[in-house]
């Protein structure tokens, strides 16, 4: 797992040793981090702060790392994941999950990507990559993205 790919953004790193967890809902506020804490049974690996956002990095108990991007106003504008199994997308995508499901189902029958694919909706963008035992992906809400933050930096 390539944690190093986004370390260039690091300003401060906090290692939290106590078992904890956090899996925020896209579009939710910091309270959603706490609300979801119990379900994941994972560990908060670290909190990374930059000028534009704060990243909470959590590892679920089944080994998938989830990174939630929170803006300075406390809104979760993006989530990224990487690991052997898919995260609970219903929880991560929150109010956007059903739109995501519908978009995948209605994907054009012909010339459909059977491999990495991107769901590009007005409300939310979801990118899925990988294969069983090595999934990765990201989701973000374009209208909540802080200025100067590029989608490419969410990983």
């Amino acid at each position, binding site marked *: 797992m390539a944690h190093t790919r986004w370390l260039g953004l690091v300003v401060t790193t906090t290692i939290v040793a106590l078992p904890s967890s956090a899996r925020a809902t896209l579009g939710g506020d910091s309270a959603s981090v706490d609300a979801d804490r119990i379900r994941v049974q994972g560990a908060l690996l670290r909190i990374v702060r930059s000028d534009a956002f704060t990243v909470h990095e959590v590892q679920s108990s089944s080994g998938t790392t989830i990174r939630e991007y929170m803006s300075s106003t406390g809104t979760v504008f993006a989530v990224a994941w990487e690991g052997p199994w898919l995260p609970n997308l219903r929880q991560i995508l929150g109010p956007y999950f059903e739109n995501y499901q519908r978009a995948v189902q209605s994907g054009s029958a012909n010339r459909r990507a059977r491999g990495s*694919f991107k769901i590009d909706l007005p409300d939310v963008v979801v990118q899925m*990559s990988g294969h069983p*035992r090595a999934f990765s992906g990201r989701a973000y809400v374009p209208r909540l993205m802080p200025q100067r933050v590029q989608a490419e930096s969410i990983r």
Partner: protein
Amino acid sequence: MRPILLLALLVAQELTPQCGGSPSTTTPVAVAAPNVQAVVVNAGPANNYFNGAFTSVTICAPGQSTVCQTIDGVLVDTGSSGLRVLSTALSLSLRQQLGTNGAPVVECAQFLDGFTWGPVQVADVKLGSEQASSVPIQVIGETAFPNIPTDCSSSGTAEDTLANLGANGILGVGLFRQDCGSACAFVGSANPGLYYICPSSGCQPTAEALNDQLQNPVALLPTDNNGVLIQLPAVASGGAVSVTGALIFGIGTQANNALGSAKVLTVDANGNVTTVFSGQSYPSSFIDAGSNGVYFLDASTTGLPICSDNADFYCPAASQTLSATNRGANGATSAVNFNVGNADGFNASFSAISEIAGPNPGGFDWGLGFFFGRSIYTAIEGSSTPAGQGPYFAY
């Protein structure tokens, strides 16, 4: 399928005229061997696929060599392990696997674009003219288990119809012996929860012993069981209506599956290799016959424009030749030249196109387009081969 039938099939396809101006091609491999079965790259049983390698799989009730069914249009996938068939394609009655308290075992298997939900049943699986006995397989969308647990459906979208799956089943002949492995074998929060027991009171997650999980059926063959070789012919620029090739069982076990000069790239614990492109290393890269294009990086990294009508593909004005190097965990490297064409520019009736590519931020997914014109070996974990133990890819 029997070898005789295979020969007849290939001859028939060679003689059949193709419409659309591009002939179907056949590969010169000898198919009349016990460890070979034919594959065809066409639009598949739902007539909606491209760059999918389909084959026919004969399954029988365990120990009953006359209670069998041949299922056509099964997708060959080196990115997963285990045989799965749609319940709508299955007429055979198979033995249900039972777990704790005699309750049926049902699986929620995860794929990139969704999940497959259905019971684990046991079948004898014929590959070529060899047989893997008592193989746990998944029956997708079995109506006896209509209630999908929320934790299962939370991983995405159900892939439980012919239209959705684009295939009558998936023949997972990948790097691993089981579809899940040790993570699913133990009770506890580290278990990703792919397996359930479903008594009448409702389904709940269960630990599933390694031998009871879906098995890569190749690993259970009496011989030629250390991996597979997929051979597909080269496809001319612009694509072809369809092509035929071969799925060959075993690596270095017969005259038809020798490694020869193939370069062996071992994989990491997740089944990935590193691809180096423009001086950058991308360690989350993989080779996968079940992906239908070459998916790599993104528009800003490659300079390739995304198609205006479909964000999943690249649409350069003119076809471009690119270079990359694949590197295994063993340090072995192999240079690759590949072409990226305009995904909107291909004949819609063509199903074999080597130049379709799209984005995959952060890595390379070398899908079926990469297999055309190559012999690609997938060695199973823990199996010995003339080039050492699997898991590895070689080509």
